């Protein structure tokens, strides 16, 4: 088995398990129809609705790999969405609206990166600044209301279809592929990991840690801008109060479900994106199952705890040890295997 596949195998198995579980409560979960030139079905909804968190997870994984965390991405979605909507309402056209939104994301990411890399503020605090105050910026842009616009070209990014598949799905697939190529076909991924494991040592070894750090926060800001554009385009309006609300936490959860350590170091973007799909499968599954809405968060919490416990490396070690102890007690079976802790 290639190493790349082996790395994402636990996440794939988890995703499969969650899909089976959802199929039990909603049997038609896997059915996909083709009508009006587009694919329709719950799985397609998962891929489409999972787009914002999948995009955020790409950026978050890079930040987390440096040992940092970016709490501002949910708020950045609101800001960039507001920027795009305001540009459209002001009559600036599709291209400029997108460019301005992406630029806003890059600037905000650069600001957080500057605070972390140059000023030396801890990442959780540095990004908390924008998380808290950023909604105010978004509200100033939208003047506190939902800024509605009518531009089919922009709405296409959120609810359009290309070759039968929703456009947001293409966007997150492309961004994920591009990010993987950039970090794995160059030394960049290695440099990010080395900064995450030991910033000082990598600086001494000649890695420009400062630039790398600012770059990952800018990448995260860019991903958040794309997520903000998709969300805003989807509802044809910028909702500064609610766009991306708490999604930074879902993005961190996706990164962790992807087996990435919050302490930094080795990372897998594809596993984090699968983590995002796991979260969305749970969300969509809860909606389809038709439980009363009071149960939504409880079901989600139980599933997430269960998945994280099952994926825990130390539990895997304990289980292995327990297994070997049991087999030692059993007669006629030699149990030479010493208990092993498999830490990733």
């Amino acid at each position, binding site marked *: 088995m290639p190493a790349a596949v082996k790395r994402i195998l636990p996440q794939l198995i988890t995703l499969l398990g969650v899909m089976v579980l959802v199929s039990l409560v*909603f049997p*038609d979960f896997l059915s996909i*129809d083709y*009508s*009006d030139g587009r694919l*329709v*079905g*719950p799985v397609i*909804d998962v891929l489409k*609705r999972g787009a914002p968190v999948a995009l955020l997870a790409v950026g978050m994984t890079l930040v987390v790999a440096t040992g940092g965390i970016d709490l501002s991405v949910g708020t950045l979605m609101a800001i960039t969405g507001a920027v795009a909507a305001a540009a459209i309402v002001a009559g600036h056209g599709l291209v400029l609206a997108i460019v301005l939104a992406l630029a806003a994301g890059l600037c905000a990411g650069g600001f957080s990166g500057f605070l972390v890399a140059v000023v030396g503020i801890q990442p959780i605090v540095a990004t908390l600044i924008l998380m*808290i*105050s950023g*909604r*105010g*910026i978004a*509200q*100033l842009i939208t*003047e*506190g*209301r*939902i800024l*509605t616009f009518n531009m089919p070209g922009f709405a296409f990014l959120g*609810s359009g279809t290309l070759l039968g598949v929703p456009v947001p799905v293409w966007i997150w697939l492309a961004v994920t592929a591009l990010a993987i190529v950039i970090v794995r076909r160059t030394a960049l991924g290695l440099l990010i990991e080395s900064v995450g494991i030991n910033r000082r040592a990598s600086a001494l070894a000649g890695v420009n840690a400062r630039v790398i750090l600012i770059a990952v926060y800018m990448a995260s800001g860019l991903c958040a801008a794309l997520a903000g554009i998709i*969300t805003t385009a*989807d*509802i*044809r*309006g910028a*909702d500064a*109060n*609610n*766009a991306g609300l708490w999604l930074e936490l879902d993005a961190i959860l996706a990164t962790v479900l992807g087996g990435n350590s919050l302490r930094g170091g080795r990372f897998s973007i594809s596993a984090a994106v699968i983590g995002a799909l796991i979260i969305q499968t749970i969300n*969509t599954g809860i*909606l*389809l199952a*038709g439980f*009363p*809405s*009071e149960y*939504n968060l409880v079901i989600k919490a139980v599933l997430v705890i269960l998945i994280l416990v099952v994926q825990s490396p130390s539990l895997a070690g304990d289980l292995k040890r327990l297994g070997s102890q049991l087999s030692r007690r059993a007669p006629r079976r030699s149990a030479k295997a010493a208990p092993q802790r498999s830490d990733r």
Partner: protein
Amino acid sequence: MKKLLAISVAVMGFGTTAAVAETVGFSQIGSESGWRAAETTITRQQAEKRGIDLRFSDAQQRQENQIAALRSFVAQGVDAILLAPVVSTGWDNILMEARDAEIPVVLLDRRIDAPDDLYMTAVGADSVHEGEVAGGWLVDEVGDRQCNVVELQGTTGSSVAIERKQGFENAIADHPNISIIRSQTGDFTRSGGKEVMESFLQAENGGRNICALFSHNDDMAVGAIQAIKEAGLNPGEDILTVSIDGVPDYFRAMANGDANATVELTPNMAGPAFDALQAWWQDGTLPPKFIQTPSTLYTQADDPEGEYQRRKDLGY
């Protein structure tokens, strides 16, 4: 924590020439929603129309800011105070201070847990009644036809969501041909409404089992209408939509034939409040403890385009 950077406490006086102009302090929650912004706009308009000197204070969703604003209104010796309370508890002390200073306090929109001799009156809508009006429209519209309703709930556990749901259920209780087949929360947001509606459509045979949508607010309904369109159905015809709030975007959807009805939650809470205050100033008439604002039903027949034009600049 929704709104932290915003306009700081701004005290604005609308100049009036009359020397005897009454001064009223208004402590607003903050700009939590478009409706709230419209309420602020209309309160200012109403004050200007009546020649009342309005002092406005934005609390940015924090009770301590509201208490500070009320205390400063008392110190300024205003003639009355309008309060849109951010939470329901913890008002007793500051209201006693206002009472000791003989300044009447009128609550807008939301209610509080405090003895009712601490305030003059409360102006607001009855959410149960709103749900009943919405349900009543659907009952009249479908007649004896079998009708499966999907419901988009507001934020789970919020009193508005509970009461609007209750009212709607009251209205359809005696009509076994109307039943709610799916009910989920869309958190009062447009994107929440769209996502949940997509799952409803998915789960109910592409939406073909659904006869009507009842949404606890217009924002969710606007999102749901987009979802219905994207599923290839015709909102307003294939799936009837009835909702509550009366925001401009929903009126536009009605004008386009995509939505059927809405029950307005009027942002004009200040009008009845000023009426009550002026009656009291004039001849000492005390208003009842609760002044219910009208919950008006608007349908496609009620000039939705005109209603949209009238509302679009109110700050929604």
